[in-house]
């Protein structure tokens, strides 16, 4: 489903042609393309964008917590095509209970640490990740500090 602002964006049209069900929406705002992708299709869409649309680089993976709204989490991917000098943002929304999404490490190896960071700080699990463990915090740490319901100060009693 293509919103009006995306009608003349090549990459949005290409993703729609590739898999119309995977594209849930998106926008073209402040010169940046955001595509909302169905979480179950993220791996195949990323593979398509990398190999057929020349987005050879995964610039970063991160997440946003929209607590208390539902679906609570947004996993955000920034892709970069060096050849086309183009960037695109992919976004997947996940429910707050036991959030989990397919890993894209099989598409870009750089996703390894980015996904570990999101797992560590947001508690989102990436299925199929080769080495999913905490990266920033100690292994025995409890909780996920970048969640909005995690306090900024104070310590556990």
């Amino acid at each position: 489903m293509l919103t009006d602002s995306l009608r003349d964006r090549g990459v949005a049209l290409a993703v729609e042609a590739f898999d119309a069900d995977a594209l849930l929406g998106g926008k073209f705002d402040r010169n940046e393309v955001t595509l909302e992708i169905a979480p179950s299709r993220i791996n195949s869409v990323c593979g398509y964008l990398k190999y057929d649309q020349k987005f050879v680089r995964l610039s970063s993976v991160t997440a946003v917590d929209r607590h208390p709204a539902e679906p609570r989490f947004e996993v955000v991917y920034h892709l970069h095509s060096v050849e086309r000098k183009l960037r695109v943002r992919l976004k997947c929304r996940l429910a707050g209970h036991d959030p989990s999404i397919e890993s894209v490490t099989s598409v870009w190896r750089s996703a390894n640490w980015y996904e570990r960071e999101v797992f560590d700080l947001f508690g989102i699990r990436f299925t199929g990740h080769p080495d999913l463990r905490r990266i920033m915090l100690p292994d025995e740490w409890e909780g996920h500090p970048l969640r909005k319901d995690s306090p900024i100060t104070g310590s556990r009693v």
Partner: protein
Amino acid sequence: MSDATLPPIIAADQAEPQSPTGARRMVLNMGPQHPSTHGVLRLVIELDGETVVKCQPEIGYLHTGIEKEFEVKTYQQAVTLTDRVDYLSPLSMNLGYCLAAEKLLALEIPPQAQWMRVMLTELTRLNSHLVWLGTHALDIGAMSVFLYCFREREEILKIFEMFSGQRMMTSYFRIGGLALEPPRGWGQRVKKFIDVFPSRIDEYENLLTNNRIWMGRTKGVGAISIEDMLDLGVTGPMLRAAGMKMDARKDEPYSSYELFDFDVPTRTENDVFARYQVRVEEMRQSTRIVRQAMDGMPAGPWKADAPHVVLPDREKMKTQMEALIYHFKIVTEGFRVPEGEVYQVIESPRGELGFYVVSDGTAHPYRVHMRTPSFGNLQATSRMVEGTLIADVIASIGSMDFVLGDTDR
């Protein structure tokens, strides 16, 4: 989420070293307090004799939760946090964040502020490359280069102090322009430095470029293919030393970089020596940019005409009621930023620096994510050093030029 759903935790140092030939392998912990890791990086290295079989970098020792801290600061206060991420190029961090926030606010930045930003960011690049060159040479055994580099770095820090009052944590770029009016006499000070600096680069090159030990330690060491680097998230001088001309200053110009005449140096040898050559040439190019910015500095205002964002002049506050009100409102509650999200990329001395800023329409950033170059570059460590000698690990990781504050945030 309860912890029962988490996968089992395997510490890197608990893995049993196994060798197909039956030879005993040794697991060596390099860091987190090793001097040549430039901070608190820990490398768990599995050795077969002197050969590295496996190398696993462990990071997080310098994690400060700075991205969480952004969420409770106002937009303008958060500028001071960015300095502390990559403390060797604080002005690049300032610039990336300010550009992202200005994109959300749709602010027009006056030419003088843009040019001043370019000039100071390039001086920061010099500062960062000087620290890199000095410490990298020190690791490999060339002690004196360090002293030469820090002599020039001192001059750059004095220039920063002149502008902002601070040597390292400058926070000189603010959303909407600069923090203070450029100081009187900045031109002569920068000119004095820039006039001698090229001859100082020649001095470093005299010490190193044809030095047999330096060549022996760096040539043919630390190779990694372009495909691997792109796939693993490596950016910056490492990519350019392999022949790939990727530089955000040229590809996605920001802050009027498109008006400056400079080259992006590349090499094709793709080893530690080539990375050294690329960074030395980048210092010469940065000097060119600084000179152009200094000579052609446009006159006019140094902050945007946006009274709801930019603090008013002291003089106006004493005479105009609105100025006083704006000052009070900006200082006490900050300014509201329209809802939206942006990803601003700049070329930091280490590579691609991306700021992903999400606004929910309030005076505090809803989420700030920093895509820092050191984090991306460090992922390639294993690929680069596995199969090489333990002594080359020092040269290889030195050539990556990472800052652990930048990695761990």
